[in-house]
């Protein structure tokens, strides 16, 4: 099957976020959609379209990905829990459906909802878009010393998200198109096909805030992530399909950093170790 360049699918910029994060739940289509029953599924076979879309954008059933931490930073999970409690009003609670996305993707095509995903199994709480949470989260992760000196991101344009998944919640099969970051950094001429911009390579890193626990699953390509430790940092390879879920008992807290990794920013490992 011919692969579509991502730039043709995602040429449109994301729309602006709603001014009030509560609008995402208040205006949810998913929350008002009826259950997809087994009979519906067998009659309509909505999986075929989702699968065709996935294959046409690079998913396959063979590719493996062996995830290894590229760094480990100091994290105090309790600080993040405190942050969440103190910043409820700036929390973006949303379901896996089209909100501000644009272009051709699984959300604008409404594929997950038609396959059975709903507002009670795709609920995500995140911070980083509203209020001053971006600034606060950067500091919680260690500020410029960690984000720029240790991990190599351009600090000012790096974008952090803190993600909380309760037991029973799933982030379905997708690849990251970093639409919000692209929208905010048009001045850097980002290119989604090769994931570069004027400053260097565009990257997304995954940071484990809480330790892995039963049922905390992250599948990248056709491989499962190892059981992670709090503070471990992993590269999410560009354009590669993945999914994650909390089918366990404890809360799953992770963070992502999206931005430009500039080689010259990286502290050599030995210096990082000594520091």
């Amino acid at each position, binding site marked *: 099957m011919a692969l579509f360049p991502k730039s043709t699918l995602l040429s449109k910029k994301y729309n602006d976020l709603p001014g009030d994060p509560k609008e995402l739940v208040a205006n949810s289509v998913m929350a008002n959609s009826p259950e*997809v029953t087994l009979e519906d599924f067998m009659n309509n076979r909505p999986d075929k379209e989702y699968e065709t879309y996935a294959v046409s954008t690079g998913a396959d059933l063979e590719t493996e990905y062996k995830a290894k931490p590229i760094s480990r930073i100091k994290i105090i999970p309790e600080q993040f829990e405190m942050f969440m409690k103190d910043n409820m009003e700036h929390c973006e609670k949303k379901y896996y459906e089209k909100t501000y996305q644009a272009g051709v993707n699984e959300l604008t095509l409404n594929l997950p909802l038609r396959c059975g995903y709903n507002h009670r*199994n795709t609920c995500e709480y995140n911070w980083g878009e509203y209020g001053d949470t971006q600034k606060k989260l950067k500091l919680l992760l260690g500020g410029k010393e960690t984000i720029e000196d240790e991990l190599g991101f351009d600090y000012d344009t790096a974008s952090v998200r803190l993600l909380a998944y309760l037991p029973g919640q799933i982030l379905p099969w997708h690849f990251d198109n970093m639409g919000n970051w692209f929208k905010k950094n048009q001045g850097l001429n980002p290119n989604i096909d090769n994931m570069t911009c004027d400053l260097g390579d565009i990257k997304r890193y995954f940071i484990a805030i809480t330790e892995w626990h039963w049922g905390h699953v992250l599948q990248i390509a056709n491989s499962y992530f190892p059981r992670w430790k709090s503070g471990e940092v992993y590269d999410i390879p560009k354009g590669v399909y993945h999914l994650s879920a909390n089918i366990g008992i404890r809360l799953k807290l992770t963070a992502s950093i999206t931005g430009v990794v500039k080689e010259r920013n990286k502290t050599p490992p030995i210096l990082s170790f000594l520091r």
Partner: protein
Amino acid sequence: MERKLKPSQVMSNYKNIPADPKIYVRDSLMAQQSEVTLWDFLEDRPDKDYEKWAHDIGSDLTTEYEAKPLSQLDINEQDFIDFMRDNKQTCQKKFYERRPYHNGVSELTMNLPMKCGYNERNTIEYNWGLYGDSNQKVKELLGSRQVWEDKIGIDYDTALIRLLAYLPGQILPWHHDNLGNWCRNNKDLNPDIDAQMCDLGPIKRYLVMITDWHWGHVLQFQNSYFPRWKKGEVYDLPIPQPHCSANMGMRLKLTCSISGAATK
């Protein structure tokens, strides 16, 4: 990890199943529950009770399980799809909550999954094997008596089957199998679930894959993930080891569990 709860205490003696399979949805407590929000979870910390129970049944964060198929059956996936379409009336649709026949000290009798956020839209299971003639029909779909004898190795006449259908977005949370329905149905075989023995031999739970593995089809057993399975593969699910599974992909996930006495 020291096991504080024996399987017999978790399962106790199951009562008889309700006559009407529609009762599970119609009378569901879970379907009436309000959402557990993040703020509820942070305030109430319902995970602590669930985790304590999990430790009490022997869960830990270190034990691995390397799953390997015991045998391979020649099955036709479409036969099972046709069966499901033709046998809606014997389907048990349920959520992950206490059912009327449950007893004992289990995650369901204590309502632990629901308190942690599991609900009627993320734990839907459709299964066949308990109602009408579905047990016999699914047995036959898996193979002849000869196949059962040669490749499955579970006593055909007393085996209890469950054909399980999970739509995308549906989860079977952390639990261990206690074979309560099989033990109730086979009291005359003097089943001892703690020793996993009965008069015919060892009591086993096998899993037959009906569909090929696809993205997001996950089975975590102890602290290990099942490999990407092929349809027809038969796996042992050792009792009473904890596990969970989910369909967080896009294709339907179909599996079939077999409970019964090993014949080889």
